[in-house]
């Protein structure tokens, strides 16, 4: 147990804290290196809207905004103040929905993003690994080869374009799926069976985008991992012993190759999350992605800052949690 804590747990915790430290520092540094002053930019957008403000109130607004952006004091003071506000969970009010706090708006959008991302991620990972292993165990199976080609063709295409193609084909030319949103306009989210069904119906195309782009990578990865395993002695012994094919596939081949794929899943979370954001923009799905594009259009700087920081902490935490669960799957770590 002591060895487990020293060798496994402490390095993971250090890595977790490093990621958050690097991420937060990057988000702190970027606005300060940028040639545009966010305070002046904000003031000029407000005055450009035509509201006549006397110099006195512009000045007081400048002070308030400087305070809000954490730009008062020396850079070192600013940096500590930045961390202080973060640790209190205070990211300031949204500028376009003043004075609703940024955290509250993100909190409302987050369930939609996660509700789509997590199932889609599980489906694409399971499907890719299962089919990939099957395709190297049964190399002459035609449907599997066709699926491999599909996965390889979609894999390099950006999420936005895949989402767009799916939307145009299945929402426009063959309108069998809804065009946008997470539920029909006019209904309110509730826990009735009816609502859950429409929710799933609306989630099909967005989830399909994530699955289609994602599963090809797992498929190839698993195929190359298992291609060495199927010629191992223990697999041949199992075959000679007359074990069932399925038993060999699941307990002897897939299980051995699953661990690197699990590590790979943690490494790609950030990319998939980014893909989910842009996919939501295409489908008008009311999650973080749509919140982001609204913030961009309404020049809501504090909102974009908030989304960036929440994403960094969220992805880092997800990776950390996966690291904590990893010993459950890998006996070598468990019995150290």
């Amino acid at each position, binding site marked *: 147990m002591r060895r487990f804590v020293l060798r496994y747990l402490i390095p993971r915790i250090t890595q977790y804290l490093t990621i958050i430290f*690097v*991420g937060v520092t990057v988000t702190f540094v970027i606005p300060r290196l940028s040639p545009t002053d966010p305070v002046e930019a904000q003031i000029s957008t407000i005055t450009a809207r035509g509201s006549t403000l006397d110099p006195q109130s512009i000045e007081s607004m400048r002070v308030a905004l400087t305070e809000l952006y954490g730009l008062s004091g020396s850079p070192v003071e600013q940096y500590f103040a930045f961390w202080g506000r973060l640790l209190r969970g205070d990211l300031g009010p949204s500028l376009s929905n003043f004075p609703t706090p940024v955290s509250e708006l993100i909190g409302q959008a987050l369930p939609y993003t996660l509700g789509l991302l997590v199932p889609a991620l599980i489906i694409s990972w399971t499907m890719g690994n299962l089919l990939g292993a099957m395709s190297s165990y049964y190399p002459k199976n035609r449907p599997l080869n066709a699926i491999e080609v599909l996965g390889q063709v979609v894999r390099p295409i950006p999420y936005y374009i895949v989402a767009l193609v799916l939307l145009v084909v299945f929402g426009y030319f063959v309108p069998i799926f809804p065009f946008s949103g997470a539920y029909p306009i006019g209904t309110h989210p509730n826990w009735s069976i009816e609502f859950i069904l429409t929710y799933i119906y609306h989630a099909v195309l967005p989830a399909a985008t994530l699955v289609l782009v994602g599963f090809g990578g797992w498929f190839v990865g698993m195929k190359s991992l298992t291609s060495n395993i199927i010629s191992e002695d223990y697999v041949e012994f199992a075959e000679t012993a007359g074990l069932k094919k399925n038993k060999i596939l699941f307990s002897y081949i897939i299980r051995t190759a699953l661990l690197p794929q699990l590590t790979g899943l943690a490494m790609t979370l*950030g990319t998939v999350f980014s893909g989910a954001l842009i996919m939501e923009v295409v489908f008008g799905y009311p999650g973080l992605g749509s919140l982001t594009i609204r913030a961009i259009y309404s020049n809501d700087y504090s909102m974009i800052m908030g989304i960036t920081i929440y994403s960094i902490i969220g992805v880092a935490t997800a990776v950390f949690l996966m690291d904590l669960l990893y010993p459950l799957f890998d006996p070598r770590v468990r019995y150290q």
Partner: protein
Amino acid sequence: MLKVLRDLLKYDDRFRIAFVFLTAVVVMILLSFVSPYDPCKSFVVPWDLPPSREHLFGTTSRGQDLFWWLTYAVRNSLFLGVMTAIISRVIAVLVGLTAGYRGGWLDRVLMSINDSFVILPLLPILILLGFLLRSRMNLFYLAVILGLFGWPFDARLIRSQVLSLKERSFTRTAVYSGTSGFWITINEHLPFVLPIVFATTINNILWSIGMEVTLSILGLSDLTTPTIGTALFWANQHGALVAGVWWWIAAPTLVAIILFLGLYLLFMSINEYIDPRTRLRLIGGE
């Protein structure tokens, strides 16, 4: 070089498809130099015309010939990708070689920064950057920014190569004959690493062009420069799909798919060719 090309064309289906697609891309890029229209000008041709013999991909609601406009878009997108790849390759090679050869605390510090960048969700960070630089963004800045964020994955790959090269006897011979660490890295290790650097370059170009599409859709790149991303941005701004101008969406999508698939298949094919074990399987033990 020609022999390699011939081998790949002969034995690898993927390379053949990549070759056809990328030839189409190169032809488009070359055509951009003889384009009859200036891509920055609008309303030079009648607007909203569907594809025809005169206007191969139709015309946009801004009165531009879509085919000729896209020749510039492909050129700019690919230019961005190559620029990004060059910048991020330099960083990846430097970090990878240093971390791998020096080892110790330097390796640990570099790799934990490296891993942080691998795990961090890049899009939100790039959105923040794009948002702040919006009014000043141009293709060159975007390439620099993407270059600064595009190296971590490949740096780790290069480092792992160097770690194994370090244990080979020729490194030890060089060390004992008094060669400095710097020269060992440059003269002895770099040549071994270059094939991987080349393969990852293609992958990095892909990533960079994809990021540009994403940022442009959000309106965060230089929207006056024709790229694949800005083509889609303007089509969305004019509600092309709702107005029935479907070719404005379809043409850039098609060009993008050809470009992305071409590069990806080239990457996969070269990746297998570089590795002698998979190369033998590919061309059957020559």
